């Protein structure tokens, strides 16, 4: 009986020791490997993809903090999003192989509608922002492309990872995809839309998008009136 308790105690202690000693080593390694870059610190460059996306995010969150006092906040946010997101490249990604089947007019219309649709949903999402901390992780640059990792701290304490995939256009970095918790936004839309395009032609998809935008706008108007 005594021997049993003894071995059990040992097992627990052993597990605890193994468990506690291993992660501390890993932590140190991880910290060294993913040294967070603070865009505002002295040695960080005042340019580059992370600096640029941080600037845009800061401006958007500032707009959101002043909702109510500035009537034009929505236009301002839309403008900010438009300046940083490359909807043309995103649209190509969303249509994928279907991009080549579309006529130039259809492409133009798709870009227009898709950016509107994203704006409507983005603004709906961004409204829920109530000052959660945004942490900037690492930035990886390779030639004309970059990935910037950010983390949003939720009220529960969990952090949601959001990565911005960016492309160097001229001398400005522009977002061409957003990856939230391993889910790529563009791929998500591409998957849905290509399935819809299997049953409908592109004209049908454009009509459906148009209807959805109208619906979202109406809903927004109602929300604004009640707010």
């Amino acid at each position, binding site marked *: 009986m005594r021997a049993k308790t003894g071995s059990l105690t040992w097992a627990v202690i052993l597990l605890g020791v193994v468990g506690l000693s291993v992660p501390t080593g890993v932590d140190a390694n991880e910290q060294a490997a993913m040294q967070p870059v603070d865009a505002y610190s002295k040695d960080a460059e005042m340019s580059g993809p992370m600096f640029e996306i941080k600037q845009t995010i800061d401006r958007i969150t500032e707009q959101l903090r002043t909702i109510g006092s500035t009537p034009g906040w929505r236009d301002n946010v839309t403008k900010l999003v438009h300046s940083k997101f490359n909807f043309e490249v995103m649209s190509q990604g969303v*249509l994928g192989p279907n991009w080549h089947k579309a006529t130039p007019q259809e492409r133009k219309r798709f870009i227009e509608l898709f950016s509107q649709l994203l704006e409507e949903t983005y603004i709906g999402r961004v409204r829920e922002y109530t000052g959660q901390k945004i942490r900037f992780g690492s930035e990886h640059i390779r030639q004309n492309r970059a990935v910037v990792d950010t983390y949003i701290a939720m009220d529960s*304490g969990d952090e949601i990872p959001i990565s911005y995939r960016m492309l160097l256009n001229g001398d400005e970095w522009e977002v061409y995809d957003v990856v939230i918790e391993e889910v790529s936004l563009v791929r998500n839309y591409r998957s849905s839309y290509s399935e819809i395009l299997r049953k409908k032609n592109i004209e049908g998809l454009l009509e459906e998008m148009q209807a959805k935008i109208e619906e979202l706008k109406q809903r927004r108007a109602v929300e604004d009136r009640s707010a």
Partner: protein
Amino acid sequence: MDPCEIPNGWIMFVTGIYENTRFKRNPWRGITLLWLAGVVLVAPAVALAEPPAAAAETSAEYASAGAVSNAEMEAEALYSDDLFSDDLYAGAGWDEEISDPLEPVNRAIFWFNDKSYFYLLKPIARAFRVVPTPVRSGVSRMFDNLKSPLRAVSSLLQLKFAQSGVEVSRLLINTTVGLGGFYDPARSWWDLNKQNEDLGQVFGHYGVGQGWYLVLPLLGSSNLRDGIALIPEFYANPLYWALHRDGYLVSIGVDGINTLSLDRDTYESIVIEQLDPYLFIRDAYTQRRAGLVAE
């Protein structure tokens, strides 16, 4: 000492568990066995019926987006990895078709889940909101703490020893200092973060594909692989052994509704914003699971 003594003891121990769980007279036994049998019969069919990769040829066509020259692309391909691959949007899983032969059935269950969500689960969850958020998050963490052993074992089975150690430590710290998991001192004081691992990911780690996409009643998105993983996961929770089946099922319900009460209408916004919520959720789930296995 009789050498037979110990094996006998073990046999009695195992059969004791068998008796105690009342697995014998359990109606779920039949269902579970049927499911397993179905899976064994169906799995080879899935493996044979994998659609040929027709999308691969088209994926490179539109890569010209963003003025990436061919030379650059080739240069990049030499050291491409998950973050940057030669196609702007290429990467793990891009243009891989989601296998969903049960789509009509799935959509029917999706419809059922949608109605249950809006007319049953969400109203109950709203009623839960009478309880202050910190309490509900604490309860949520307590339920989650009990899934630590599963995460530890899942990490171990993937030979992720450090992660497994983190989960064991989290369980020990949070169960004691964290008052049964209500608080998470392991994270706030020791920076030991939860390791998102489960048995579905273990299967994935060893090369098992996701298989058919499934929508389970009330549980939502799943697939053949993760769905099978749910069976052992069901028994891996200490609550199952403490409360037995019925009590455990109730606790799963409470946990689910409590989690829902903490959620900020995620499902509602998807339904409002997307042209086809079913397709959107199907892809998001598949991408997320693939991402979790890859990491």
